[in-house]
C-alpha cells in the first residue's frame, strides 16, 4: 500500500534537503530517535541503523538511502519495523518561490497478509506528519539563525 504526506517549509530546497540528508541531524530533530549508527556513507549512498522509542519499547530499523541532491532521497528499510515485511519510499523536495514542498511517499507491506492495512497506514501517516513538522521547524529555525 502506498501513502503520501506533504508539508511546505519556508526555507530553500538545498537547506531543507541538507537537513534530511544529514543522518546526524535526525537525533537532534526527532525526539523519539535514540540512536543512529552509520555503516556506510558517501555523497550518494547511506547505510544506517536507527533506534526509535515506541510505545511498545525500542525499535531498531536498518536502511539504505540513495541521495539525489537537492531533489530526492530514496529509501528502503532492509530491516523494517515490527509487523512489516517491507517499507520503502522517497522524500522529495520541490522548490517554489524560496519555499520547499517536502513530500514523503511510502510503500509498505504488512507481515500478516490479513492485517489491517488502513489502520497501519493511518498510524504511519501520523508519524510522517509529526516528522515533517519537526523537520519544518528545524529547517525554518536554522534559516532564522
Amino acid at each position, binding site marked *: 500500500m502506498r501513502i503520501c504526506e506533504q508539508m511546505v517549509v519556508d526555507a530553500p530546497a538545498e537547506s531543507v534537503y541538507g537537513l534530511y540528508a544529514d543522518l546526524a541531524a535526525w537525533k537532534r530533530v526527532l525526539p523519539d530517535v535514540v540512536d543512529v549508527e552509520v*555503516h*556506510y556513507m*558517501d*555523497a*550518494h*549512498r547511506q*547505510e544506517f541503523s536507527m533506534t526509535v522509542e515506541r510505545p511498545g519499547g525500542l525499535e531498531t530499523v536498518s536502511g*539504505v538511502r*540513495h541521495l*539525489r*541532491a537537492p531533489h530526492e532521497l*530514496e529509501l*528502503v528499510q*532492509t530491516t523494517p519495523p515490527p509487523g512489516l515485511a*517491507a517499507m*520503502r519510499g522517497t522524500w522529495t523536495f520541490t522548490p517554489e518561490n524560496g519555499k520547499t514542498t517536502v513530500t514523503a511517499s511510502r510503500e509498505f507491506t504488512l507481515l500478516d497478509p490479513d492485517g489491517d492495512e488502513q489502520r497501519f497506514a493511518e498510524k504511519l501517516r501520523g508519524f510522517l506528519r509529526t516528522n515533517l513538522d519537526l523537520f519544518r521547524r528545524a529547517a525554518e529555525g536554522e534559516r532564522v539563525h
Partner: protein
Amino acid sequence: MTTSPTESPAVHENAVGTYDFRCVETLAIPRPVDRVYDALFRVTDWPRYLPHVEEIDVIYDDGQYQEFWMTVASETDGSPLRVRSIRNCRYRRIDFFQPLPPRFLRHHAGFWRFLPDSDGGCLVEVSHLWNLEPVVAAEVYPPTAGESTEQQVEKMLAGHSRLALESWRKVLTAEGARDADL
C-alpha cells in the same frame, strides 16, 4: 519502479565529482537487453553460471532493492573472499555499492547499464566509482617507477569489470543458454 537511463542519477554523481576515480568498461553481448539484465538481476542463480562465485547469501530482496553476501574464489589461492553488496535494480540499470569496501578504498560504488544495440543485442556498461583510503592504498599498491598507486587500483578495478563482462558474455552466448532461460 522504472527510470530511463537518460534520467540516471549517475549523471549527477559524475557531474558533481564526489568520487575521485571512475572507470567504465563496455561490451556488446548478442542477446536481448531484458535477458542480459535479468541474468545480472537474478543473483541467486550466479553460482550456477559463474565459476568464480561460490555462494550467494541473500539478506534482502524485494524485487528492486537487494542486499547479499557473495563468496568468490580467492585470486591468490587463499581463503575465499566474502563481499557484501547493496543494489538498486531499476529499468535497464543496476546501481550497487559495497558498504564494507576493501581497506584501501574509502568508498566503492558503481552501476551497470543495459542499452539496446542496433543488432537486437545489448551493450553492457559497467562503471566503478571510488575514493581511495590513501595511506592504506599506498601500502597495498606501493607506487613503482611505472605506475602510481592510483593507476594500479584503477587497473585492478577495470580488470575486474572486463572479467565480469567477458564472463557474462560467455555465459549468455554459450550453447544451451537459451534452454537454460538465459
